[in-house]
């Protein structure tokens, strides 16, 4: 049967290496045993981190909801530290390791270079993560995720981060080695697939990021044992060179997954390889300056430095995201049209497989990331506008729309395909899996929007008590803030429910899930996403008669959508300048 992934004429290898492969009956991907096991191990630990982070999320959420105010101050800051680290670092990065293995091994039809090294890396990362968690939960690292010097954690905390980072760096090395193996063994013809190209971009950014990480944490570790001095402002700059670049890894990985899921679910096509690849290259080129937008109201840097660097050199990374924001939905639209879904401007939206959690996750990820995360991010990262935003709840309101509703949502969508493809199981609790993306993204959307609202009133982030009951003076926020944060909490609880369902579904599927046969798959057994039941067939040149050729091009629906996006962007952006103009004169 022909599928999107067909590689006609691939020679089967008969040697020992060849026996390690299993050809996936669905996609024709050839899966290398060691790669499969490494993907599984990393995905499992990622899920454990998600569970720890998720329980922490509920606890801090119920504390910030002033009507409940669950935890005491010590626990609050401790659990907040655990939430940030477990989610942003451990969950996200372990999952990315799995994605890297997937993008270089199966997608390139090759074996993983040095699988034993993979287990060493995995061990190192897990050990590092365990050390860090142990330090946090035993109260020896109440410094929050950013651990701004001179706040001081136990030296083992910093050491744990270093071990984790070294492991991740070695996985990147292994990824590049695998690319070299694939090239040498000619496992693929032509150029790298776009998804793998995106993963290469992510891996290069990861290397840059991890080098910044070394520059931050090695001196900090030495400082913690009394061997050297570190300037607090320099620390902030280096930490964010790590902290922000790592967000660019997430964006590159997420966009690659968008392309991947588009292809798997509805056979979306790459409109133009040049444009999409150039956009990935822009991410690589302009990333190391991104640290600046965390330092816009810091004393250590001049305004010209801030302007040049925050704009990532005139917003070239923003340009890249805006390009992907067009090409991904346009690829979905054109893909659908090529497959005969040609009605009107938005017939491809109406007829899309909304019951496929892989597809709904993909779309929700694009929409919330773009409309909420992207627009707010560029706006609040503007030098002057940051004055009315810095360290208020508008900041976590923004990044829960990017890394959570965007990246984590994309990861979840991918999981619904990895379970059958890699773990060879049906997705358990299929009905729940179908609503899970809507719960998670819907809840997160409410959470982010209302968190941002609260931030607009000046409500600080990372704060245990905004009634200031233990402060020397009386002070109260506008009563509207109570309602706003109540709604925020409800949204967060719904999202947490969605996250909990995801964990339940994946753990159950992987450990107790049913295996399935090829016949079952083809008759559409419950528990298999439609992209596997009816894999989109590869399109031919003749299919292109289905494409419209009007003023708005091949993807008129997407063109309308991106223009709406731009209008929303401009409105929000200039509204914020207006808001800024009302505050005290400052210079």
């Amino acid at each position: 049967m022909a599928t999107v992934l067909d590689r006609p004429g691939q020679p089967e290898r008969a040697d020992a290496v060849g026996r390690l492969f299993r050809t996936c009956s669905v996609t024709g991907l050839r899966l290398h045993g060691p790669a499969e096991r490494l993907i599984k191990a990393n995905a499992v630990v990622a899920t454990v981190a998600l569970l720890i982070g998720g329980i922490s999320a509920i606890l801090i959420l119920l504390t910030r909801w002033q009507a409940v105010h669950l935890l005491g101050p010590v626990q609050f800051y401790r659990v907040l530290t655990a939430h940030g680290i477990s989610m942003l670092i451990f969950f996200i990065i372990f999952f990315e390791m799995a994605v890297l293995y997937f993008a270089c091994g199966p997608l390139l039809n090759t074996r993983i270079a040095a699988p034993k090294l993979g287990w060493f890396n995995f061990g190192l990362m897990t050990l590092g993560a365990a050390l860090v968690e142990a330090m946090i939960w035993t109260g020896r690292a109440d410094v929050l995720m950013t651990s701004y010097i001179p706040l001081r954690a136990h030296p083992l905390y910093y050491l744990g981060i270093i071990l984790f980072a070294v492991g991740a760096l070695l996985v990147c090395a292994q990824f590049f080695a695998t690319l070299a193996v694939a090239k040498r063994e000619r496992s693929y013809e032509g150029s790298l697939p776009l998804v793998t190209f995106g993963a290469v971009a992510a891996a290069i950014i990861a290397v840059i990021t991890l080098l910044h990480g070394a520059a931050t944490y090695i001196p900090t570790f030495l400082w913690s044992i009394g061997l050297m001095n570190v300037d607090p402002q320099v620390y902030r700059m280096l930490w964010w060179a790590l902290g922000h670049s790592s967000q660019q890894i997430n964006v590159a990985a997420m966009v690659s997954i968008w392309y991947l899921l588009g292809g798997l679910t509805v056979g979306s096509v790459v409109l133009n390889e040049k444009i999409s690849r150039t956009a990935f290259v822009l991410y690589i080129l302009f990333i190391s300056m991104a640290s600046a937008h965390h330092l816009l109201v810091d004393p250590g840097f001049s305004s010209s430095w801030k302007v040049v660097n925050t704009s990532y050199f005139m917003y070239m990374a923003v340009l890249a995201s805006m390009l992907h924001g067009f090409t991904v939905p346009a690829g979905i639209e054109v893909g659908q049209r090529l497959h005969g879904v040609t009605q009107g401007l938005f017939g491809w939206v109406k007829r899309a497989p909304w019951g496929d959690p892989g597809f709904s996750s993909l779309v929700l990820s694009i929409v919330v990331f773009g409309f909420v995360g992207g627009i707010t991010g560029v706006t609040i990262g503007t030098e002057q506008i940051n004055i009315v935003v810095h360290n208020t709840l508008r900041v976590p309101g923004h990044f829960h729309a990017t890394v959570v509703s965007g990246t984590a949502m994309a990861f979840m969508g991918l999981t619904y395909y990895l379970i059958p493809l890699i773990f060879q199981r049906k997705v358990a609790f299929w009905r729940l899996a179908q609503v899970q993306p809507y719960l998670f993204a819907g809840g997160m959307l409410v959470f982010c929007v209302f968190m941002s609202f609260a931030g607009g009133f000046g409500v600080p982030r990372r704060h245990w008590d905004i009634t200031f009951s233990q402060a020397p003076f009386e002070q109260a926020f506008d009563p509207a803030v109570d309602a706003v944060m109540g709604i925020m909490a409800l949204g967060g609880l719904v999202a947490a429910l969605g996250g909990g369902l995801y964990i339940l579904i994946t753990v159950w599927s992987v450990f107790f899930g049913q295996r399935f046969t090829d016949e079952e798959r083809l008759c559409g057994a419950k528990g298999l996403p439609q992209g596997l039941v009816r894999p989109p067939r590869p399109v031919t040149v003749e299919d292109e008669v289905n494409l419209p050729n009007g003023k708005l091009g091949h993807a008129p629906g997407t063109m309308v959508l991106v223009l709406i996006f731009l209008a929303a962007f401009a409105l929000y952006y200039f509204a914020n300048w207006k808001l800024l103009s009302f505050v005290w004169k400052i210079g």
Partner: protein
Amino acid sequence: MSKEPMHTALVSPKGRWWERAHATEKVWFGIAFGWCMVLFAMMPLWHWKGGQNPSGIRRKVDPAAYEARVQQFVQDYKVGELKGIPVVEPPAGSDVYLLGRMWSWYPVLKLKKGVQYTLHLSSKDVNHGFSLFPVNVNFQVVPGYDYGLKIVPSEAGDFGIICNEFCGIGHHMMLGKVIVTNEDGSMPGEKTASATEVR
């Protein structure tokens, strides 16, 4: 139209993929690029025409020296005390020194509406966050760095200073105060009170 059929992002493109983009992609590229230039231009423009910029007078300072400067400032212009914290009323247009420390803002400031001051911010120990309530103006306060910002209070009344950077276990107790009086030194409440009396 290309001769190779279109493909998904999962397969290796064969042959030459460095092809010209479709017209719509080029149009979107142009629009997006133009928008990025607008985003970029707004920042220098606001420095030139706008009233709120984080530029400031910035220099490194020894935390002990800064603390001594604040003490001097308090001694020079202290006019009272509030909850044990000195209230300081500096002359119009002068330099004002505020110290962030675990876990209080020191001292309480008394300023005049419509007058420009240079507000210096620094910390004695760890990072703090200066967040003026309810105006919602926020700056990072970093030990070892003096951030001198020219400010003009535009309304009279009581303002809080929330600490919005985590600074240890007492972070949420760290609340300071700025009192802004009318040009004649009266408080907004007093003025309305006397106005009703007259009527």
